[in-house]
């Protein structure tokens, strides 16, 4: 059972004075209330200052164009130890001794560039072609084994299973141990009290185990000739040599979370969206070629990363507000992807949307998601295989259970029934 905050936040954002709104409360996302709050902020105060929160004061950037501005100006808005609002999580616990966020997502150029470039070839088009066949075979196996006309959990049977299998392939991780990857992923993004992680001690213990396992694999791969898997790429790069053990571990964790949670939740979100917009499912059934636009559209609709953080490097202005040097800034992708001024009928999933690729889910600028093409390929193969089968529809039987996190827009359980 997931953690549920008490007291629950108000469902109506207009019951709270504008300056008291705090969209960083994870309960808003677990209860799926955040959308109404962002709608109000976009309308009344698109660059919003919250003076008091569990993470201290911070700015919320909620409009598409403003988010694009922050994301693409790394000279003004730094990612260095600022990618989430929670400094305790960045430091790895209250004593600063645990596993924090020291990976390239939390760095600025030029260090960011060096470390990012080590792993880029693993997810570049040439390597994706190599992975495509095995991803399809595994997807076919998982989809073929799904029960028909009876209830099952889509998250566990499809979303987690497929993304952990793929990640095991990408890092060439022992296949039978693959569910450890999803556990490590959950513990990396988790914080105490979220229903997954109970304490910082537990979180750090689990992540240090992950570190030991990957150090072992790293040492093995170092002795072997270079292979196109991520661990081998790290083991054979001179840049890795200069990393501290903590940087190595947190870069591995970044790849695990990046390759796991996001695609997983989009696989679940896509099923939910097509359940809610049955006409779109009919369009897809009639024309499976629409998978091409369905995939980016589900990535926008789900927006698996709610926000990423930055810190202002100097005084600057945004949306008429004065942001001061050192201020924390949250780029709410989930809000930008619902911005009526940038996207037509943004709350709806529209499988034949005209320019579906123009969304914020991958971010823009130097930190743009490095695995975006791999994610799209997995999603495309999954939907192609679903549409080849005589499924009349996939019904979502109850409201999905959402995770207690303001960073990841995660679905932990979603009971479905395939009507065939």
């Amino acid at each position, binding site marked *: 059972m997931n953690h549920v905050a008490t007291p629950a936040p108000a469902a109506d954002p207009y019951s709270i004075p504008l300056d008291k709104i705090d969209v960083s409360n994870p309960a808003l996302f677990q209860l799926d209330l955040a959308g109404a709050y962002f709608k109000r902020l976009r309308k009344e105060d698109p660059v919003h200052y919250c003076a008091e929160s569990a993470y201290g004061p911070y700015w919320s950037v909620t409009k598409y164009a403003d988010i*694009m501005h922050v994301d693409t100006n790394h000279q003004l808005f730094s990612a260095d130890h600022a990618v989430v609002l929670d400094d305790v999580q960045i430091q790895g616990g209250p004593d600063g001794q645990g596993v924090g966020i020291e990976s390239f997502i939390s760095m600025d150029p030029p260090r960011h560039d060096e470390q990012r470039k080590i792993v880029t070839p693993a997810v570049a*088009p040439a390597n994706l072609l190599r992975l495509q066949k095995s991803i399809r075979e595994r997807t076919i196996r998982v989809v073929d084994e799904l029960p028909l006309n009876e209830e099952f959990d889509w998250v566990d049977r499809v979303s987690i299973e497929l993304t952990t299998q793929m990640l095991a392939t990408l890092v060439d991780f022992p296949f039978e141990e693959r569910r450890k990857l999803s556990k490590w992923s959950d513990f990396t993004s988790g914080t105490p009290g979220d229903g997954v992680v109970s304490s910082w001690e537990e979180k750090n213990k689990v992540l240090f185990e992950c570190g030991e396992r990957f150090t072992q694999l790293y040492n093995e791969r170092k002795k072997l000739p270079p292979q196109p898997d991520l661990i081998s790429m790290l083991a054979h790069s001179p840049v890795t040599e200069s990393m501290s053990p903590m940087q190595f571990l947190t870069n591995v964790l970044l790849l695990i979370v990046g390759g796991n949670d996001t695609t997983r939740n989009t696989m679940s979100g896509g099923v939910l969206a097509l359940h809610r917009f049955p006409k779109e499912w009919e369009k897809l059934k009639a024309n499976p070629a629409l998978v091409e636009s369905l995939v980016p559209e589900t990535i926008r609709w789900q927006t698996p990363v709610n926000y990423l953080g930055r810190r202002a490097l100097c005084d600057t202005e945004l949306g008429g507000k004065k942001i001061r040097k050192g201020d924390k800034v949250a780029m709410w992708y989930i809000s930008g992807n619902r911005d009526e001024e940038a996207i037509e009928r943004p709350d709806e999933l529209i499988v034949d949307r005209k320019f579906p*690729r123009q969304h914020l889910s*991958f971010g823009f600028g*130097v930190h*743009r998601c490095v695995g975006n093409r791999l994610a799209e390929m997995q999603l495309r193969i999954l939907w192609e295989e679903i549409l080849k089968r005589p499924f009349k529809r996939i019904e979502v039987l109850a409201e999905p259970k959402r995770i207690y996190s303001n960073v990841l827009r995660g679905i932990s359980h979603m009971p479905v029934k395939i009507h065939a």
Partner: protein
Amino acid sequence: MPSVTYIEASGTKHTVNVESGTSLMRGALNNGVPGIDGDCGGQAACATCHVYVDPAWLAKTGRAEDEREKTMLEFSNAVQDNSRLACQITMTDALDGIVLRMPEGQF
């Protein structure tokens, strides 16, 4: 209207008309040319409209000079000396007949 020839990595050619003043990324999208995505909408904030300018046309388009374009290309894939982001090239009469090749995948 001046024309542009986009050549996919597979060799398939698409010759289409692109109005002067339009970017070569937008020209591909508006004409349904596959192989150019233009995810950021034309701000050199991603690299999904990466093209190779035919060497014969390079003098007219120029090479990537803008810092932002150069940075995004640096994170891209299979970058060559004649790589550009198509969103940063604006169509003009002088570019009538220009030939652009696409990489095997946008990234």
